[in-house]
């Protein structure tokens, strides 16, 4: 029954895809019972996926814990290199996948009432399912190119969910910050994937050692891919601003799943590449800085969700340290506990007023000079924009706005022409 594991792992992915398609159809067709249909499809789809993954994990454990290939699709093949989409299930993927479907499932159940009567109800579910698909691909990916597909999906759905209430100007601005951070991450991962593929003959078997320039660039690219996703310093300005979206999406993304994607990338690519020593020490340094700064930043936040966001960031920093020191199992256990805890905390963030902690007492008065300095640093860095008029991002934004204007005119002309000929 070696085929048990891949069958159920693939079934999970197909369940998500199927649910996604049905939801998209439901949104397109409309109808009065649409809301109920969509939330039911999402919940049951995730339930099926979750059950499948549990069975697959059980099978994996019972049958000796051998990584098994789940699916393999050849995208393109040149003379010496090929690009394959490969999914495989192993001991690292199992916990991540189970947690993914659990948290997404709870978010889907949560959102049935929470998003009820909201104009974007269907859109929300579509994006969450797309995210679940993206996470599944990332977790099951067997090479970096496959991982990139899922990585993009995660980034896209993230940005779209942050800008869920797009009528508000501030929301759109904050969503853009997150989007730019994700673009940096996506681009780095893409470059790393391409370089790895080019480097490897056949593109499948991982080559443990990289030499020369590649040995420096590829790890840096991986770092640049992991850091913005996991909101590590200095790419952390977007995280508190990501709390613009609805609570359930904030919870599963920035408490549970998306923010740990960087961690997963490190864990997984550690199996494909042997990281040089300087890489591990850099990880530790980044982790220490993020954990420390994040901790103080969390202590100066005056809103609950912001405080939880920074706490999340600081814990992921600790996980980076664990990876840097080679404690991979510890990192996974840390991830499991942290993602569940943080998701629950963000989901019930609004209970702080009536059911939460006691008022007064426990507030540390930052009176001494050192403490006041620390407060200032934490406060100002936590609200920093990440951008400014001279940043690369601003320049790119201006270029894209200009292009956008040209495009809008072009589209308007085409539209008018089409409208005219239709009559």
């Amino acid at each position, binding site marked *: 029954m070696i085929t048990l594991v891949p069958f159920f792992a693939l079934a999970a992915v197909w369940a998500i895809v199927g649910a996604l398609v049905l939801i998209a159809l439901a949104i397109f067709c409309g109808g009065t019972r649409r809301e109920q249909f969509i939330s039911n499809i999402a919940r049951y789809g995730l339930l099926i996926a979750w059950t499948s993954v549990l069975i697959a994990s059980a099978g994996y454990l019972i049958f000796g814990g051998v990584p098994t290939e789940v699916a393999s699709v050849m995208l393109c093949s040149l003379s010496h290199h090929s690009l394959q989409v490969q999914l495989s299930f192993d001991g690292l993927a199992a916990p991540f996948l189970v947690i993914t479907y659990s948290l997404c499932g709870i978010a889907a159940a949560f959102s049935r009432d929470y998003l009820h009567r909201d104009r974007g109800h269907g859109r929300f579910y579509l994006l969450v399912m797309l995210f679940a698909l993206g996470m599944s691909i990332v977790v099951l990916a067997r090479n970096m190119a496959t991982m990139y597909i899922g990585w993009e999906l995660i980034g896209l759905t993230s940005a779209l969910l942050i800008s869920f209430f797009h009528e508000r100007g501030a929301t759109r601005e904050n969503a853009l910050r997150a989007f730019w951070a994700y673009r940096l991450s996506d681009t780095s991962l893409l470059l790393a994937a391409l370089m790895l593929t080019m480097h490897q003959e056949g593109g499948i078997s991982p080559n443990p050692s990289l030499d020369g320039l590649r040995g420096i660039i590829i790890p840096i690219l991986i770092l640049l891919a992991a850091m913005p996703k996991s909101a590590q310093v200095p790419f952390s300005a977007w995280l508190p601003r990501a709390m613009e979206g609805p609570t359930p999406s904030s919870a599963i993304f920035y408490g549970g799943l998306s923010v740990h994607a960087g961690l997963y990338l490190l864990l997984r690519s550690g199996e494909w590449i042997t990281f040089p020593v300087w890489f591990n020490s850099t990880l530790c340094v980044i982790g220490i800085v993020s954990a420390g700064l994040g901790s103080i930043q969390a202590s*100066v936040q005056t809103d609950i969700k912001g405080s939880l966001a920074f706490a999340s960031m600081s814990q992921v920093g600790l996980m980076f340290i664990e990876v840097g020191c080679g404690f991979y199992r510890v990192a996974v256990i840390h991830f499991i506990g942290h993602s569940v805890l943080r998701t629950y905390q963000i989901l019930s963030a609004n209970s702080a007023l009536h059911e939460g902690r006691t008022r007064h007492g426990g507030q540390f008065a930052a009176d001494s000079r050192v403490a006041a300095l620390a407060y200032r640093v934490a406060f100002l860095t936590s609200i920093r924009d990440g951008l400014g*008029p001279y940043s690369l991002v601003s320049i790119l934004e201006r270029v894209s706005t200009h292009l956008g204007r040209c495009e809008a005119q072009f589209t308007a002309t085409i539209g008018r022409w089409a409208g005219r000929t239709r009559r």
Partner: protein
Amino acid sequence: MTLSTGSNRSGLRDIINRISHYLPTQGPLDVFVHHNTLHAFEEYHFLEGVEKAASVYGARAYQSEFSYQRSFIGGRINDHDLREAILLDQPSLVRQNEEVASDECAIEDIRAILLSAPEHTTRESVFWALLEHGGLDHHPAELAFPRWEGEIARERAIVRAMSLAERSEYLDQYIERHEYWNKDDELVVEELTKLLERPVPDVNRTALRMLWLASMTDALRMVRLETRLDGMNADTVDRAARELTMPLITKLAAAYVDDGVAGWQLPRRKEGFVVAVSEVLQGHSPLVPWFVRGVGSRLTRLVGRDPLDALEDILREEDLAQDRWEEVLQRELLELKGWAGFFHLLETRHEVLPTSSASREDLLIQFLAVSMIIRARARDVLRDEPRAQIRPHGVDSDDIVNRLYYRAFHLFRWCQVRGVTARTLVTWPAWRKERLFSLFASWEVRRRERVWHLAFEGNFERRVYHAFLAGVKHSARPASIPHFQIITCIDDREESFRRYLEEMGRHVVTFGTAGFFGVDVAYQSIEGGEAPFCPVVIRPRHVVVERAKDQHLSVVDRRLAFGRTLIRSRGMFDRGSRSAMGGALASLLGGIAFVPMLMRTLFPRLSGRISGIIAGREPLDTVTDIVYEREEGCQADEFSTERLMGFSPVEMAQRVGGLLRSIGLVNNFAPIVVLFGHGSSSRNNPFRSAYDCGACGGRPGRVNARVFALMANRQDVRRLLRESGIDIPDSTHFLGGYHDTSSDSISYFDTDSIPAASGQFFEELRFLVDEARRRNARERCRRFAYAPHDDRDAALAHVEGRTQSIAEPRPEYGHATNAIAIIGPRNHSRGVFFDRRSFLVSYEPSVDPEASILTAILAAVVPVCMGINLEYFFSSVDNEVYGAGSKLPMNIASLVGVITGFASDLRTGLPAQMVEIHEPVRLNIIIESRLEQFEAALGRLPVVRGLIEREWVKVALYDPVDHRLFPLIRGRVSSAYDAFEALVPEVHDEESLISHRSGNLPFVSVHQSMED
């Protein structure tokens, strides 16, 4: 002319005092008190106040025209209402002489203006409606244009008789290529030419196109006639500066008043806002945000100076003429009115956040000064910074072009409604067109919305009067020997509960009174803390204390200790999980959080049961006592304000007697008299207190009901009452109870002290109440999606689950749909289905010749109910400016309120999820009283009189002797309401009415199953 600094200062302070009246007065969110959002405008008439406020706050004054038009199409507003409203707005149209014909015409014209007002306000959207949406091919399906059809028939004959040459000549009359002519206009002309070239042209389409061209020509003339409206055309740099600095200012403000979210306090907040902010933004450190680079030096200049002087300096630096100061300061202050309002509250009321270490002196002025400096600095930086990313917020076309096309489109639609084709339009004489243009000009958007709103309210008002009169006509006399008398709060949610109780039989009688039952106490609960449980305008002097019963001392101690440990450890865990090391430890155990997360989302009812079991099976009330009495002889000075422990028997008798007289229950007592206080429960809901009893100051009315019952059962109190004329027989037992309006759960207090003789009645009561609450849950469930229909037990289980779910933003709908208040004997409204929209106050005018009871009732009821009504009104009319927006991105800030998303102004008012089913209409109060008594009562209440005269609430008097209803217009009685043949439908029971219907229902009479 230069003024001395002294008078400048006092002038400035006056300005600040004036503009601070516009700030919201919502305190910390853990106690939500409904009040009139526009309380600063109460000195104006309602309509005037609403419109003034709209311009001050940049909000909507009424609902959108479009929604009123939809209401008209849907039948919610009919022609009669519209006509009445037009006449109300322009009384000059009602004239009794020969100009009647032209006035009818004028009313028709105005009606057409209202119905045809388009929602498209820019040229692009107008052309979209015309070209893409078929505006030139047919008219909107919903509005029937019968006149147009008639005209088209005539037109058809004429056009088809014309030759081709005649047709193109005919066309040329209509085309005037004006200076704003563009491709879309050309397109219309081309199409029209092609249509006319056909041998048998489609006359409707031709006529519509020609009408459009004619409308354009006329609109040009109209637009040139109008004066340009002053738009709020904020400078782009100014707007960008505001948007960029908003997170900074709001986060600083939040840190200043933080009451427990952050682990670290803002440094130096004891020394004032200016000092604290300059401490954070000091120097030229690279950490200071780029758009306020260098603001630190300007702020340090403020430190140590008198804030008023500093403010004056700022105004002078901005180069502003002194007569513009007030306007500028008002705009700056109201930019972040939520936080500014909270700061103002901190400054003026010391009971708000009593333990906060933040300094309160001159707080509002400091806030104003700091925010003005920060914004000014941002403006300077953005202006000097050539590459600053300032996104323009322009409109697609010029303002005047948009107005032109809007007018043309309006005229286009208007002609269709009135049945005026282009041919007729061009033949109109100039004076007729001038009159039409001036009509259009005088009936601009605000006025149209106002008339629509009056029609909207007028329709509702008529239905209420009809329902009330039907209720009076069918009023049944209750059974001569009542078995149960049930006293509840006047709350509109209790209306359905009382209705179901009364349906059990005529031996059940209910009363409504303010939910604190006259028991104004400061209550010290055994869990700790003291809070007032009475209306906010009363400062309670009497303290009652909860303490454990002797035999249950250990149990109570254990449970309290457990509760305290639980809270403390949860707080520690929560706080600790945010630090690095603590978080790591918490993550080890973190997986356990999966259980409550799963349970509270998917199985809320079960998780509620489990929490209950963990906390302790019986509620704490059953094992505790309340100490509420003071020994005889300690007679308190009536006029001092010092606090007293409990009540003396004389005071108790005063309260018990006062309440009983007020509701008219002075004889014929039933064996059991129950008082139900009410409150609400929900999880993960910052607005929980908004569902509690308003009469108890935003708290549940448990202790009030309990204490009243204890007082009324005492022999010494009954003796005193007998002496004053209220003879309560020994067989009558008073019982205190609690109705949770979210979960529809009922509990009773002190059931062990029910005498044996009343035991049987109590059992019967339990059964009745249980059935009533089931039906109540069923009726409530019709509003909820995913709630079971038809099954009462399932409905009860459903509403219980709603209160325990962390995912439910609508645990109940609270006061949503509230619209009516009836003050009078219950049997006059008994049996009428008011759809949970009415406050019901029991009042017996026959025992109140001096109108003293009416005075007390009006003094309490009018402000409280009006506050609730207007809070819901404004939060639903404009949920973004007056209300708190959607709950979905809400984030608790500083433990005092909520913000939206990452950073925003402190949100005040009600969230969208609480007002989404609310229909914004003013409160209709029907008072059963003779005019003289009413006038006497109002004479003693100048504030209430003012509110009624300025129509913030609408009042009608029902004369119990004449049996006629007199609506008050601006506080004056004019004529009796003529109900003509208005019929109120009758149904057998609610089930047929409410089954599978979730919207607002008509008011009907319900045949009660009579048991004699």
